[in-house]
């Protein structure tokens, strides 16, 4: 029987893999995928805590996070498209408008 800790461990693994992807990938789309993995890890923790504590709020929070993630992906990909249109690149290293 898996304990709460096992679920959290999977969550931790998912988070670290997502982090690795988000920081390592060159393509902006892949970076967004990494971020989605990290959000899923957090959701997994929320639902696991909710289930083991017998309370519902964790699931509600997970639902909110899913809604936010959907919004984030939509806006993120739209930014990406307009960026691609104006600079003809989706490589993270070429996107340096934040440069001071």
């Amino acid at each position: 029987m898996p304990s709460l800790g096992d679920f959290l461990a999977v969550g931790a693994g998912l988070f670290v893999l997502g982090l690795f992807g988000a920081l390592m990938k060159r393509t902006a789309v892949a970076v967004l995928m990494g971020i989605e993995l990290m959000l899923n890890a957090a959701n997994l923790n929320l639902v696991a805590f909710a289930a083991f504590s017998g309370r519902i709020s964790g699931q509600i929070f997970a639902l909110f996070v899913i809604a936010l993630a959907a919004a984030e992906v939509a806006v993120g990909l739209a930014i990406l498209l307009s960026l691609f249109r104006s600079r003809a690149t989706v490589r993270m290293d070429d996107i340096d408008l934040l440069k001071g």
Partner: protein
Amino acid sequence: MVLAVWLLPLASFLILLAAGRRLGHRSGVVSSVLTGLTLPGVVALLAAAPAGTTRLAAWPWLGILGHGLSLGWLVDPLSVMMAGVVALVSTLVQVYSLAYMKGDRDFPVFFAEISLFTFAMQGLVFAPDLLQLFIFWELVGLCSYLLIGFWHTRPAAARAATKAFVVTRTGDLGLLAGILLLWSATGTLNIPRLLALAGSGALGGWVLTGSALLVFAGAVGKSAQFPLHTWLPDAMEGPTPISALIHAATMVAAGVYLVARMYPLFAASPTALEVVASIGALTALLAAGMGLVENELKRVVAYSTMSQLGYMMLGLGTGAYTAGLFQLFNHAFFKSLLFLAAGSVIHAADTHDLRRMGGLARRLPLSAPAFLAGALALGGIPPFSGFFSKDPIIAATAHQPALYAAALAGALLTSLYIFRAYFLVFAGTPRGEHPGGEGSSAMRGPLWILTVLSLGSGLAYHFFHRYLGRHPAAPYPVWSGSTWITLAVSGTGILLAWLLFANRPVERPRLAAPAHRLLAERFYLDQLYAGTIVRPILALSRAASWLDRRAVDGLVNGLARMVMSFGRGLRRVEVGRAQSYALAAFWGLALFILLLEGVR
């Protein structure tokens, strides 16, 4: 009733926001009428909240660990008085603006912003909770920013707006820190409960003094007290009605209101009271000195606002609670009168420069006596209103020689600079082309009403004292031993101003020789006075002005330069790639967790 007073301006704001463009010039009428409708509400509140009562209505909207933050209102004599000032001045200023702002491209926007300001100000006044107070405190700051920069295409206005925003924000940081300190010490932000805690001695020691001083820092920023006063003169870049409403009568007085609202907190800490009194006296003196060497009409009035706010703080700091608030009350009327009259002058003379005005009394048969009434009230000459509030403040400092000297010197300078302005503008012969005359009836009406108020509001001292004094049983000290001294000092200031500035020669390049000699001889007379009396005063004023520019601004600029060089160093690290930033953030997170581990 409170809801009507509070929310009618909001309704006006929303209407103008939605339909301002379509309403055009009528938008100003809508806004003025809706604000004017709050006046009966204030009168009803006056009846509903007799002296000594406190009505509290609060609804929790945010719970943190069992402590509720609430939104609501607190109705007591203090808030009713302040709400009345806000409603009345706001209405008059809006009516005045109907004519003053006529033809401006953003006419509806102007009235929308004034409505938002009025709503925010009433929210601040009625706040029962420090967090609500802070929210509306910031909202009035925002409105002030928007309205100073109303003519945002002028670089000077945009700069002044930013400066005002940033400088007052510095003080707000202190206020926020004070609120957080009170929260962590008591677990409540409810103002009556906090004041009860402070009054009963449950709150004491460094927490009490520290939080009082931090709250005062917010008041210093908002009320343009030394050393955060630099934004107010620049704020005169905004339209003149705004200067009258926000930067004379209401928002800048919010700092004084805050101190009065939290008065038991200050009263429990002698140190805090001393700081309030000293800062007030210092500002009163320095600002009066700076007003004397200023050549722009509106900025002279702005310096006098700073100086009078200093007197209010001085009054609160020395325990003259009623007098300090009465000064706020009277000042709201006579100072907005001065500003609106100055607006008429600028409208007529088409210049801000005192040296290019003169002889305007004939062209402005209403504004000239109105300005004179405001100046007499400001100078504290009975029976004008300033006398009934300023004199008791000065008398209250009589047992502290340094404060007393500063207050008296400030009174001398006050009548000197304001009558210098009066004589330069209205007396003598014109020194420039003055195309215009008195404005339309919308501009004249408010001037009339404010003139009457400046003359009469002081006479209500008995009622005022009974209504919101802390010790209403004790008589209001309207005539004391030092009154003659104060009057003599103020009178001397007016006399000096008349001798020095009323007969100033017309500055024309070439005049007939005999006339020239005559004028020159007159000028010798001026020089005589200048050498004996004015020179030292001017030197003092210049020193104050120099100190302000070099020491205070220098300090501020030095800080800014430090921040900038720090930023330049950081710039090398900033390669502009989001992933590098995120990596740094996660390293920070990991190391932080590691640190926590080590601590445990």
